[in-house]
């Protein structure tokens, strides 16, 4: 067992982990931050997407020990302290960007990663960026639309509700 500590959503946390403990298991089981989901556990679906030192990673395919000392952001840290949704979350709600909601934490974290570097992405850029995020409900049109809307662009011309 090794001791690790990191910043998660602005708070310093620490814990004892085995070498094999995955970052997602540390977040979910030790910190009880269960908003980060495990869809596939094989780095395909992106439901487990979190940010580590400012970039999106699949937390099912990173060791917790590798995140020792890192700055981690999860879906739980996205809303304001009073529970108000951030721009991306609000856009998902407004544009029906979720159905069952299982993929949504990963989608929101992937979207935040995209908009940070590309504040006004095209539809094609959004789709390219979401290649590693699978929605089992297949609600891609509205996910893309939500991200477009979150970037402040006109979505009235986008296909499909």
């Amino acid at each position, binding site marked *: 067992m090794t001791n690790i500590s990191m910043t998660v959503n602005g708070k310093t946390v620490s814990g004892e982990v085995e070498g094999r403990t995955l970052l997602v298991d540390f977040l979910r089981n030790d910190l009880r931050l269960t908003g980060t989901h495990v869809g596939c556990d094989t780095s395909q679906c992106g439901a487990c997407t979190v940010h580590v030192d400012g*970039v999106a990673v*699949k937390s099912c*395919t990173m*060791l917790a020990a*590798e995140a*020792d000392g890192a700055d981690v952001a999860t879906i739980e840290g996205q809303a304001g302290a009073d529970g108000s949704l951030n721009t991306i979350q609000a856009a998902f709600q407004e544009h029906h960007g979720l159905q069952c909601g299982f993929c949504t934490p990963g989608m929101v974290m992937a979207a935040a990663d995209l908009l940070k570097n590309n504040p006004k992405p095209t539809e094609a850029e959004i789709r390219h960026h979401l*290649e590693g995020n699978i929605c089992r409900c297949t609600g891609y049109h509205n996910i893309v639309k939500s991200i477009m809307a979150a970037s402040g662009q006109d979505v009235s011309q986008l296909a499909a509700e």
Partner: protein
Amino acid sequence: MYNFDFEKPSTIADAVAALATEDAQALGGGQTLLPTMKQRLASPSKIVSLSGISEMQGVCKGDDGSVCIGGATTHATVAASASEYPALAALASNIGDPAVRNRGTIGGSLANNDPAACYPSAALASGATIVTNARQIAADDYFQGMFTTALNEGEIITEVRFPVPEAANYQKFEQPASRFAMVGVFVAKYADGVRVAVTGASEEGVFRWTEAEAALSADFSAHALEGLSVSGEGMINDLHGSGEYRAHLVKVLTKRAVAAC
């Protein structure tokens, strides 16, 4: 996944020493190794992370003008920083998906030598040099068949040096489910000739299509490839495509790469 000891050295020398233990294995981005360990196809007793070694990070320009990439540099960093070699940056920007590119490394990709991986084609077509903690290996000697390389046990890729071509292009025909290359062709034109490397197609892993190299060195146009044919013999035959189909793609993609140069 079976448990293991975890070490994260900060120098190449310490990593080499840590890897001297029996059953120790290097960890790059873990994008291939961790899934393999979850399936218990690998069960190292010790994992030595290379991500904390600053001398293995980043992209720089060598004295001879080549682009030098640290062995632990992520695909995302290569995509953003290898502007001296645009075709290489473009290849890196299209590996897997953004989260995979933020962790996966060039050293991990070349050490793994997946028959459908992208980087091996760039290294072979560029006549790159694979630099390890012990020696320098020419790409022509490095790739030794599917998942097989010239690396010895415990040897670490510390840097990869790419001579910059006059023109180059990588064409990847994506296998839509895995996003790996069903077939990928990297064409690089140097003053002393053209090199063409093909990934995803052969059961022997990445290879040079020497007939196309000769034709293109004489006449660098898609038209120069017209008379050539690629045999389906020895090509990967699986549910995604037959050997004949892959052979057909090799020629189509080579033409597209030349046309895009």
